[in-house]
């Protein structure tokens, strides 16, 4: 569901010294005030121009230049992503205030918003049309332009125009890769402050293909139905960023525990996962990849002469959210995403496939796609499964479609391939 504050009935009061001001006039005034503040902070400093020149080359493409400047901005020590300090620690550290972008460069540290403004200053120095944008994060409440409260615009990102396209960037969020915004800053209203007040715009929404979970399994099944083998999971885009941010204050043991706890939710009772290597925690441009060994005693069931092999061992937690028949509130997924499973199971010698479930592909709406198919190649069962949700906010009227979609996908996940031992098959 959307954030609780968004759905509970409430009244918001506001007080103003400008009683004759319309809502539009309010935002114009706020835009001017922010513009003055930002332009004063960004300024035109020769130190910034020199810093930009140091990291880019004249032969770089515009995107290459921007990527380098983005990386330079992220080298600044980001105080917003450090643990909260006590008063005594702050006093002892004696951090100086940043009054402008040159101070950020000079001090080598800054809060997230200051890092964004520093990046805007670098980009402008390199000749780009770059601006800060005040945005309203959607993790706690949705923006209401009719409510004249500038505190709704509670974060800042950068927008840079290259050619005919505008790119939204947030170098002020640690570990956020170039080209992506943290999910709470995607598809939200933003005010681009300008001298004349500026205007509202909407930040970009990454497509489902930019938030992907890929799960690959290479497993062996024994005659008692026990399953064991390698499992590799790659998280890409927002899926990786979300996990990186959650674990940013953890050490190796803490990160390991976070992953193990998450994987427990994917596996049914009786299955366990020995976590091996996890790579990519600190490489925002790379997938976050987890490898390990799966053990699942009693995965396949012996039914007389048959071996019943479920198509997947990975549980669908999404279906559990759609058990109830009726729903009161809209459905909120945070961001569009894809899940791809590719599972290979080597069946024991002496078994041959008797029946395989039919391939299924369901798409009740262009934003929802589910498919699963199984095929046999000699003594291996290969299963491909895909789930796509290309949307993040669905009205409550859409609930029944989602419920049918996810329960149908769960039912398809629960299908079994039927194997028969060769010996018994000959007798038939």
């Amino acid at each position, binding site marked *: 569901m959307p954030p609780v504050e968004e759905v509970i009935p409430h009244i918001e009061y506001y007080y103003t010294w400008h009683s004759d001001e319309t809502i539009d006039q309010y935002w114009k005034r706020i835009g001017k005030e922010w513009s003055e503040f930002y332009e004063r902070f960004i300024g035109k400093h020769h130190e910034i121009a020199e810093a930009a020149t140091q990291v880019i080359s004249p032969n770089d493409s515009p995107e290459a230049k921007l990527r380098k400047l983005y990386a330079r901005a992220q080298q600044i020590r980001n105080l917003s992503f450090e*643990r909260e*300090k*006590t008063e*005594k*620690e702050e006093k*002892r550290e004696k951090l100086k205030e940043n009054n402008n972008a040159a101070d950020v460069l000079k001090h080598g540290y800054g809060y997230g918003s200051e890092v964004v403004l520093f990046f805007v200053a670098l980009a402008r120095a390199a000749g780009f049309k770059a601006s800060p944008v005040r945005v309203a994060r959607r993790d706690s409440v949705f923006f209401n332009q009719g409510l004249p409260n500038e505190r709704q615009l509670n974060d800042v990102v950068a927008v840079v125009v290259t050619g005919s396209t505008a790119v939204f960037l947030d170098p002020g969020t640690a570990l956020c890769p170039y080209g992506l915004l943290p999910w709470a800053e995607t598809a939200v209203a933003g005010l681009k402050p300008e001298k004349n007040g500026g205007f509202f715009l909407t930040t970009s929404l990454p497509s489902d293909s930019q938030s992907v979970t890929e799960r690959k399994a290479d497993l062996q099944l024994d005659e008692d*139905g026990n399953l064991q083998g390698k499992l590799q999971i790659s998280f890409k885009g927002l899926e990786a960023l979300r996990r990186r941010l959650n674990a940013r*204050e*953890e*050490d*190796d*043991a*803490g990160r*390991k*525990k976070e992953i193990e706890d998450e994987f427990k939710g994917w596996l*049914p*009772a*009786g299955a*366990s996962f020995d976590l091996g290597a996890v790579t990519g925690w600190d490489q925002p441009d790379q997938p976050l990849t987890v490898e390990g060994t799966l053990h699942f*005693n*009693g995965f396949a*069931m*012996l*039914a*007389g*002469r*048959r071996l*019943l092999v479920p198509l997947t061992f990975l549980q669908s937690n999404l*279906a*559990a959210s759609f*058990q*109830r*028949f009726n729903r009161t509130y809209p459905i909120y997924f945070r961001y569009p995403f894809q899940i791809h499973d590719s599972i290979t199971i080597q069946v024991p010698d002496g078994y041959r496939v*008797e*029946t*395989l*479930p*039919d391939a299924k592909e369901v798409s009740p709406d262009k934003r929802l796609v589910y498919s699963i198919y199984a095929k046999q190649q000699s003594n291996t069962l290969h299963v491909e499964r895909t789930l796509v949700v290309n949307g993040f906010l669905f009205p409550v009227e859409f609930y029944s479609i989602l*419920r*049918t979609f996810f*329960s*149908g996908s*769960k*039912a398809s996940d*629960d*299908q*079994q*391939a*039927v194997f028969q031992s060769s010996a018994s098959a000959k007798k038939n």
Partner: protein
Amino acid sequence: MINRRSSNLPHRQRRTEFLAVLVVLAFFCSAPAARAGAPDWLHAAAQQTLPEYPKDTKAVMLLSEQNTTVKSNGDIETLYRFAYKILRPDGRDYGTVEVPFDNETRLTYLKAWCLPADGKEYEVKEKDALEIGFTEEFYSDDRRKILQIPASDPGNVIGYEYVRKRRPYVLQDVWWFQREVPVRRARFIMQLPGGWEFISHWSNAEAKEPQASAQNQYVWELENLSAVEIEQEMPPWRAVAGRLDVNYFPSASSQPVNAFHSWRDVGVWYSSLTEQSRDSTPDLQQKVADLTAGAKTPLEKMKALASFLQREIRYVDIEIGIGGYQPHQASAIFSHRYGDCKDKATLLSSMLRQIGIDSYYVPIHNQRGIVRPDFPSAITFNHVILAIRLPEGVDTNGLYAIVNDAKLGPLLFFDPTDPYTPLGYLPTYLQDTYCLLVTKDGGEMVRLPLLAPTTNRLIRSGKLFLSPEGTLSGVVQEVRWGAPASVERARFLHAAVADRRKVIEDFLGHFLPGFMLTEATVGNLEKYDDSLTMQYRFVAENYAKSAGNLMVIRPRVIGAKASDFPDLKKRKYAVEFSAATLQSDMYEIQLPAGFVVDDLPAPVKADYVFGGYTSKCEVKGNVLSYERTYEIKKVFVPISGLDDLRQFFRQISADERSSAVLRRTSP
């Protein structure tokens, strides 16, 4: 085991120990640091050599020290010192110090330090702390000072010390020397007035003699204690962590009532605290008369009064000073219509007295295994229930929480604070545990029974139909009594009336993807003395899966016994179930025409000391029937039984996932 110690050591031994203690005290037991900078004890703790700890250890407690000075007037001053080395980011929480105090336990000193691995040390004082009122009760005078130690980061050492002064209601102390992290060194120092004695008791650790001095000072010191980490379904943390209980008292000639040599002493003390509480008023007498007017037997009257306490007296705890031990007057509780556990016990006892039935206070702990029968203690209890002396001739059928006392005869134990467990039963957390039966002339330890599996029943049966397309539909009925009924009642009654259907939907959703609930009724929801019944109808499309000319169906339609069983790998502690229980599932599935059963799951029979499981699947005509029983006989499974437990749940899990194969015989 009880260790009885006094200061009457032989001269030679006393001198030797005195010197040893002097050395220890000179180094560790100085008064709180008065000068600036971290004290020597913290530096000494930080310089200790540490053993190698597991990689996921978030911190190590370098020192835990509790230095208690008892004065001859019963005043107690305790200096606490704690030092940690933070090993991992998760360990930063230890840098937030919370020190409790109240109107009668004064906090007279508080200071903390951080010794960074590199850099200058930090110091924070009481004036830097935040004071909050903190209580889980409705009202109490509990307060806390919260102090944030700077730079509580991995690699750094933090430490703090504080002093509390109090005049306790009981002359007892407890020293918890284990933590959720390893402890490098733990020390308990006790200074008694001349002529005082003490008895002590170790729980979950080997008993150790203290170093004693001529000044009647005793020092216990332990090193390299393992962490007591939380494991799923383990016994209560306090039931497995090491502790030392100490009771101290003046010379034998002047024994105060709050000094305990025996459980009888504890009983006498509690009896003296409560003897005036069970008063009555005309209004109260009238209420008893009204409540019992329609009751024909003493048991019916008892049930009427018990139900009144459970439903009409709100649980509200107001604990100030002695109010943590002493109940309010029955008349006041009745008048206000609220009270805490001991208040509820008091009012019920007073009401029972009016119908001629005696009853007795029973202090208890609401977690199994905390109270140790071999050491008298008042501070290990946190709850009070009632023991009701059953009148002669009462039909005990359906009364399971009975203990036969040698003097008082059959006693029925009842918890009026639990809103859903009816008279005759005991809440699961009070079963198979020790409590104190308080009588006028003292008290005695009583072990409450573990109620039999047959008293905690869940019977689920379904008559279902399978369509040729794989849709399953039909009706399921459930009957519950004992613990399964109490748990389910709580679930329904905590939900808004309009949301009660969702309780059933949430349950079915675990087993039937895409189902539709077409009817649901709950019977006897508020008749706690009767079995809770449920009936629900559903339609579940795609329940059975087609594959070619085969259809695969899971005969265990709903209900799970193995899904929540804990990970039993790498475990240090036993597994504890909440209750013994016997549960049954029976499903009859009428198969569609044109299909025959080709393969069935094999029957399962598992029998262990702690429990058993059977299941069988059969075909009679065109009906596929599945039956199973799940029984927990013993709630405690020791480490030595974990292999069996693992195998037990594996068998159940496999059975729950097993399928029958149907073959199409006609197109």
